[in-house]
């Protein structure tokens, strides 16, 4: 559908002529999900869950849009401005920034469009509701696994995503809650890698140079963990450094299964996407929306990894 629209757009540009006006006569409920990006399995799966929910409601017309990269906050703001203008029935947004995104959400409110927040909660009192996970708990789970795996002794580092974003801050905070109570563990710091794989690898290389005696690393998303995994493998340290990721995409789960990664905190992005759209539909219809929906997390280890590959 999107492709056809795009091709017809190109045709019109080339011919400079008239285009077929493609107007839907039936009254559709337009719901738009704007994610931080679509460049990882996490967002793709969240998207497919959202589409699943939309299919169950034939009167809903769903569009899923995102900026090119998670750091392109201004692009996300532009996408939202354009959708607000179309007076869509409801918006579901995974905010790429916190304060940066609130001005445009205020515009949505002024236009009477309910906004459901997905994945990354923000301190905006007018959100219709939130669907996501308890990231702090996820961070604690990662820390508890690491403490056990290294016997409560040694140097530990974190590779983290964009600073100032709630998901990232919460995962780190939860991790530190646990780590800092264990006297034998020396926390050497949290290095940002923008949730990107290539940067995750670079940061890990630098960490290994700086701290040859590093025992464990927590990467706050899969992409960075997979990058870090490559850096660890390149130094033949696989299995010697405990590596824990977050999200549990297929690639990461497979890495856990064959021992290149030790554990990964699992989110269930399809369920997040599906529930987000269900709540957004409620909001669009003016029905009451649950204020905070916790989809829950799990921990993938070698013992249970096969269950997550189904």
């Amino acid at each position, binding site marked *: 559908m*999107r492709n056809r629209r795009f091709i017809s757009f190109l045709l019109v540009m080339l011919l400079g002529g008239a285009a077929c006006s493609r107007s839907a006569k039936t009254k559709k409920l337009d719901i738009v999900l704007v994610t931080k990006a679509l460049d990882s399995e996490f967002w793709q799966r969240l998207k497919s869950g959202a589409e699943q929910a939309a299919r169950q409601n034939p009167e809903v017309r769903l569009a899923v849009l995102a900026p090119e990269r998670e750091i392109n906050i201004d692009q996300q703001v532009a996408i939202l401005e354009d959708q607000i203008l179309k007076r869509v029935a409801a918006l579901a947004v995974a905010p790429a920034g916190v304060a940066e995104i609130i001005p445009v959400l205020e515009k949505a409110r002024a236009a009477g469009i309910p906004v459901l927040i997905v994945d990354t909660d923000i301190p905006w009192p007018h959100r219709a509701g939130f669907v996501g996970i308890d990231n702090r708990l996820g961070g604690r789970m990662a820390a508890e696994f690491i403490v056990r795996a290294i016997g409560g002794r040694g140097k530990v580092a974190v590779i983290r995503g964009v600073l100032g974003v709630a998901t990232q801050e919460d995962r780190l905070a939860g991790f530190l809650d646990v780590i800092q109570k264990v006297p034998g563990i020396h926390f050497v710091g949290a290095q940002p890698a923008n949730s990107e794989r290539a940067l995750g690898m670079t940061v890990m290389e630098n960490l290994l140079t700086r701290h040859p005696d590093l025992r464990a690393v927590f990467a706050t998303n899969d992409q960075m963990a997979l990058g870090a995994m490559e850096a660890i493998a390149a130094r033949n340290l696989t299995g010697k450094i405990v590596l824990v990721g977050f999200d549990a995409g297929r690639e990461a789960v497979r890495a856990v299964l064959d021992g290149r990664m030790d554990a990964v905190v699992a989110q269930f992005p399809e369920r997040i996407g599906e529930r987000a759209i269900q709540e957004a539909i409620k909001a669009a219809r003016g029905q009451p929306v649950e204020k905070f929906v916790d989809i829950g997390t799990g921990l993938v280890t070698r013992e249970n990894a096969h269950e997550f590959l189904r």
Partner: protein
Amino acid sequence: MTAMPAWLARAASEALRRFGPLLALLLMAAALSLLSEHFLTLDNLLNVFRQSAVNALLALGQLTVIITAGIDLSVGSLLGLSCVLAAMALKAGVPSAAAVLLALATGAVLGALNGILFTKLRLPHPFIPTLGMMNVARGLALVLTGGFPISELPSPFRFWGAGAVAGIPMPVIVVLFFCVLFHLFLTRTTPGRDLYAIGGNRQAALLCGVPVDRRLILAYSLSGLMAGAGAVILAGRMNSGFPLAGVGAELDSIAAVIIGGASFFGGVGTVLGTLVGALIMGVLRNGLNLLNVSAYWQTVVIGAVIVAAVWVDVVRQRAAPGR
């Protein structure tokens, strides 16, 4: 081509150069208004202008540099650093007007430094100093903030990015103001016209007594100044000075200038063309957003438009006799 009288070919070529980008913009707008009922509304057009404002400002600066056959890769990072410094100053209790001046001065001074590095250190190409500055400025922005965005800025400062006068958003007013200023500077003043001479033939300009180094430093300083202006608009609009602001913006600004008909070889380029170039990019992004086309397709289209714009220019130059 042989059938066409020389004067006609020249006139057609000139018309294409002057109005080609504008024509393309109008065609695009016409197509989009057919495809989306939301495109041709006042609110949406204001959206397009608002969304294009930062790129338009950066592109004006980039234009002055490209006219001299140069390039400024540092504008995105200078924007980020200016953003962060202004936000930090505001947090320290500096009044809004002073923070605006600080952002502009940061851009202008570091821009001038680009020019000084290029001319006085005789670096082989402006690519080098501005590439260096791109990294240094971004690094400083990240170091100063520790990577954290500095948000919740006071409203007098935010006015420049988020406010409006008589229904016209401030970013639009700021862009129009600088367009007029740059147009007058480039066409009506000696330093401005010298930039075209330098871009046309630096050696000849030198022999004609143009103070080439001083003019080049001025051009890079203006480019930096526009990065500072873009920073004020963006930080105001987003209510935040974030250290990753403007990542990749240098390429967008170069694209706008090239789509707007300026030549990478220097000596050619207008403010109107550049403004139209920035609007073409803004209209494309906005239109594709309205049609729910993904951001990935948007970059494909913009890439194609850049190549097409330059190709049209090449065809035009080949067709034009006596060039």
